């Protein structure tokens, strides 16, 4: 669990650092341009953030941190839900500004008191006076302190107001605020930042021209969430640093949720965290999922039961079956022998990962520039494909090799250089040979180039001959001949070399990109519960209800309920019967008819034991009916209707 917490922390740090990096460039721009403040115009920045609303919080937090560090201590973040009116907005604004003032010089207790008194009246003038006093105070403060603050901030730091979700602010509040503050822009250097989820047009739709003319808006586009995702995948999954890995289906589920549901990086991370939790919770051998250095220690501390668990792993069994019989017995009976073997296997697995990532990146270099992207443009798609099955057996791989054989030289050379770089960056000696080989290819290409330049001189001459013949017929003929000869000509040296390169890459792929579930002990580090994950993250409550009502047998394993096809048996729970009956009705349902139908069904199910106690039975059925109906009401299928006496209205299926 400690590992897991570490992982989480690292994860978030990654994200935050990434976000702040992506925003630092905005910041530079902002600083430049706040200098050019114009009269009566409030400088404003519109930040287009995209629809992944949930990530915005993090972005803004990063932004405000950067702002506070570099530009101004006075940053206020406003959210629409806090500001239903202009009064609340001002209150909130004042509160935040004054609070951060306290942070800046928290030594002066008097100041705090003063601030709290100030809170009584929240208006623009009071804000201005506060601002004046604050800036003056910083001027008059002790030189040391002054230097301290002025080195960080300017002489008169602007007040930055961030509107986190501009779309959800009421128009009037925004308009009022802008108009009021434009009146005071001389005294108060105000900067607005709007966070926008949809498109920059929204500013003009929200604000009338008279108001938007008061703003001097500059537009910034934040990075798309897809890029965030690929960075995260890059940093988390495609490194050998994190021992924990995702199985193919799980990754597919997570990516699908991201792409088709919310575009939210945060949710992706949440899913990832959940995977980690699930893995450590459900897999007893996840203890072994740790960094390389710890493996030895942990393997030796395993108990007998845990060794038994290892023996039960399907991948381990496969491994055992491949060994010769003497070793098999050893593996299955001797704990200490297994100990050594396990350690070796785990280390193998680790090495495999390292190699896997490197080769994957190399392959990605090749495939990502092929036309049509048979193996996907993003490295995550390639990763999925490789995890799923042996990538070299797929059609896509075949076609991409075919395409790779048609690459031109410059592209090929740059790709090879990139591959060399990637492989060089690895610490292991595994790839020394590969690097050498690739370098050899590179030099050969250079040689070819030299040769080619010589050849060019030769090839000019036939062209000259061509030009002599001006007759159209002859021209055609010679052209055809040329074409013929070109086709029949043997492969040039370059082409030969190209084939060689591609074949070599192919061999690398076959060797290193073996899908993970063919490796022994992959269960330790790979999480494969895609169904669980989907159930928890992307649940379908309506489907569950539907199943329970239509097919109670799914949940209640009773033979009497068994029924195939669309119907249900009449022994089903009351609510199922009532539900089924109500499906046959239109918009309004007559309760009496419903009751009658219900009692028909129930009576038939309960062995008609004659009219002796029919009255009492009737009451019970009546009561059961009432309960079932009110349960349906609670579930939102029906509601009482006033249109007709003793009728209820259906709410589902486009009912009302």
């Amino acid at each position, binding site marked *: 669990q400690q590992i897991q917490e570490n992982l989480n922390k690292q994860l978030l740090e990654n994200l935050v650092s990434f976000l702040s990096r992506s925003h630092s460039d905005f910041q530079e721009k902002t600083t430049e341009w706040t200098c050019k403040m114009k009269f009566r115009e409030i400088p404003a920045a519109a930040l287009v953030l995209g629809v*992944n*609303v949930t990530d915005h919080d993090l972005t803004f937090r990063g932004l405000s941190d950067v702002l506070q560090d570099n530009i101004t201590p006075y940053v206020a973040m406003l959210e629409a*839900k806090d500001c239903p009116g202009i009064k609340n907005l001002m209150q909130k604004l004042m509160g935040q500004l004054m609070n951060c003032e306290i942070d800046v010089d928290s030594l002066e207790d008097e100041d705090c008191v003063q601030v709290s008194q100030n809170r009584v009246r929240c208006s623009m003038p009071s804000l201005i006076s506060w601002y004046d006093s604050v800036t003056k105070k910083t001027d008059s403060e002790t030189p040391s302190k002054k230097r301290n603050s002025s080195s960080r901030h300017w002489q008169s730091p602007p007040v930055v107001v961030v509107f986190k979700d501009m779309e959800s602010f009421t128009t009037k509040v925004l308009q009022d605020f802008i108009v009021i503050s434009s009146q005071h822009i001389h005294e108060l250097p105000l900067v607005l930042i709007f966070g926008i989820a949809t498109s920059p047009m929204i500013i003009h739709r929200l604000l009338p021209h008279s108001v938007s003319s008061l703003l001097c808006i500059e537009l910034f586009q934040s990075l798309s969430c897809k890029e965030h995702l690929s960075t995260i995948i890059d940093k988390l999954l495609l490194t050998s640093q994190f021992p924990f890995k995702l199985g193919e*289906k799980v990754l*597919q589920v997570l990516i699908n949720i991201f792409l088709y549901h919310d575009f939210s990086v*945060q949710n992706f991370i949440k899913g990832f*965290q959940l995977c980690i939790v699930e893995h450590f*919770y459900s897999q007893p051998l996840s203890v072994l999922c740790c960094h390389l250095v710890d493996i030895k220690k942990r393997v030796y501390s395993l108990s007998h039961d845990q060794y038994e668990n290892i023996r039960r792993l399907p991948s381990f069994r496969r491994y055992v079956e491949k060994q010769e019989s003497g070793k098999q017995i050893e593996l299955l009976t001797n704990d200490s022998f297994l100990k050594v073997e396990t350690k070796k296997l785990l280390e193998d697995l680790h090495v495999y990962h390292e190699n896997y990532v490197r080769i994957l990146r190399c392959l990605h270099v090749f495939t990502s520039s092929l036309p049509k*992207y048979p193996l*996907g443009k993003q490295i995550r798609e390639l990763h999925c494909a490789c995890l799923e099955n042996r990538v070299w057996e797929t059609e896509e791989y075949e076609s991409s090799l075919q395409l790779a054989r048609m690459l031109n030289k410059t592209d090929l050379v740059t790709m090879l250089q990139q591959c060399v770089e990637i492989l060089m960056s690895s610490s292991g000696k595994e790839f020394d040979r590969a690097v050498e080989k690739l370098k050899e290819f590179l030099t050969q290409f250079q040689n070819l180039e030299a040769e080619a330049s010589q050849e060019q001189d030769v090839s000019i001459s036939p062209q000259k001959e061509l*030009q002599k013949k001006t007759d159209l017929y002859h021209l055609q003929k010679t052209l055809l001949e040329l074409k013929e000869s070109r086709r029949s000509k043997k492969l040039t040296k370059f082409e030969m070399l190209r084939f060689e390169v591609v074949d070599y890459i192919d061999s690398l792929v076959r060797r290193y990109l073996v899908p993970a579930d063919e490796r022994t002990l992959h269960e330790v580090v790979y999480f494969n519960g895609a*169904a669980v994950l*989907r*159930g928890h993250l992307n649940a379908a*409550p309506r*489907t569950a*209800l*539907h*199943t*329970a009502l239509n097919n109670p047998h*799914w*949940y*209640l394993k009773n033979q009497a*309920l068994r029924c*195939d*096809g*669309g*119907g*249900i*048996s009449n*022994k089903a*729970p009351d609510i199922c019967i009532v539900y089924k*009956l109500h499906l*046959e*009705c*239109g918009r309004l349902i007559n*309760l*009496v008819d419903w009751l*009658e*139908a219900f009692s*028909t069904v129930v*009576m*038939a199910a309960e062995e008609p034991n004659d009219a002796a106690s029919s009255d009492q039975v009737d*009451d*019970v059925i*009546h*009561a059961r009916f009432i*309960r079932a109906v*009110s349960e349906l*009401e*609670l579930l*939102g299928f029906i509601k*009482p209707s006033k249109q*007709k*006496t*003793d009728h209820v209205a*259906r709410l589902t*299926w*486009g*009912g009302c």
Partner: protein
Amino acid sequence: MSRPEGMRSSRRSLQVKFVPDEDVLKHISDDAGTKVRKDKAQLSVSVKRFVKKLENISDNEAQEVLEEKNYVAALGICAQDPVENGSNISGGEVYSFQTPKRSNKMAELASELAQTPEQNVAPDHSKCPEKMAKTPQNSKMFLLMHVFSLLFQSKKKEFVSTTPYRLRKRLAAPDPYLESESEYSASCSEEEDEDEQKEVSTVLSDQKTPAKTKAASTPPPRNSIAKKNKEQKMGNLVEEYFEAHSSSKVLTSDRTLQKLRKRRLSQQTLHDLLKNAPLAYAAEIRDLNQQHESLFSKWMLQLHLGFNIVLYGLGSKRDLLEKFRTSLLQDSVHLVVNGYFPSITVRSILNSITEEVLDHIGTFRSPLDQLEFITKRFKEDSSLELYVLIHNLDSQMLRGERSQQILAQLSSLPSIYLIASIDHINAPLMWDHAKLSLYNWLWYETTTFNPYVEETSYENSLLVQHSGSLALSSLMHVLHSLTLNARGIFRLLAQHQLEKKDNPSYPGLSFQDFYQQCREAFLVNSDLTLRAQLTEFRDHKLIRTKRGADGVEYLLIPVDDSTLTDFLEKEDEDV
């Protein structure tokens, strides 16, 4: 030769460059594969780059399509997976349009369902032919399929005509399946129809239900014609759709519960009756619950890791949560919120947190302030932990936007652990992305099949027609605290109202008439005393006054007639 070639290539480059973007895109996407590659060899370097860019674009499209496919495939995977909830129900089945039903469909279905025991109980009965065993099955399926096939047809049509390429693509996969299904409905409907009708009528003849005659006389459903060609079907469906939605009059029978001559059940008798009635499938339900209970420790772990848990599925999850509480939360601070309680508010939840958990005395101006206070306290004191259990997070009182917002913010605090249950089918619609991320839900399906005893026991959640016991008891309560005269006045009014109950346009008793009657009964001696008395009634919401068109004041008791009758009976007993 080199020159003309160069010329051509340059011209081509121009050509490419000056075509408007959209055209190029269209063009490229049409034959990107072949043409671009062919061109590539000829074009000069700069042009190549340009084309490459375009290629990128077109490939983007291709990739999108690919992803589309992936998605469908992923869905398919989900269906094939041994998912715990392996309900591979297609969306169309769960959410479909409404189509008008024949008025007696329900009775018919009921009789069909009633029919099934014969095949279940006596499968070895010699008299029971195979057909008999088969028919109800088929007919049931047929009823549903009729609807579904219509729906699918329409959907397909719609997609083809209006929606862009993308949707068509998405639909392409399940298509054959649909086709086959609709065909099936066609094939099975014809042969079985008439048989079925006969079966129904014969079986019903010994059961005394009014549904019998209707069911027997129903004409065979009209889809035998409809299935013949799609166009007609389409037209039919459209008509049916509008018929179902536009017509304000719905054809249902006029029978009311009043005429059923059955006394209404009070809450108490209802409760008693249900208690005596044995719960079906108790063993299976217990199994199901035990399965859920095994997850408790997992929930605990996940709550502590910053997730919140929401339970969904049919059946009351109250007992489950209670068990969770008693087994794991005994020693920790926890708060149970009964969301189904009709007068619960967010404010009361927040109050109980501030007052009972944080021991804070004092009031707050708004829930937001209160929330801020709570947030601050929990952030300051990291040892403070609170478990919040909410039964029915989706209840009437809590489902509002603002209350959900507040609850979401509350749940996002790291030391507040929320575990909640939802029941309403549309409950997930309460939350937008922002709230969802605040809640940080983990969904757990806990279908319990337990009856919603507590949840439906409050008067508000019951159908109004069934009992007025709460209204009645409150009426009694208030009246008992009044003087004898006042009670008499109210009785008079109630009796008068009951006399006029058959008159639907009864406006109420005019003040003057009422005064006369009261005088005659020696209940009041002046206009003023009566008015004072009425004011008191009005304050307790016992009566309502309305001014008629002629300016006369009319008095009305806003309680339904049956409750009023009950009330008078009780009063008589007391006196």
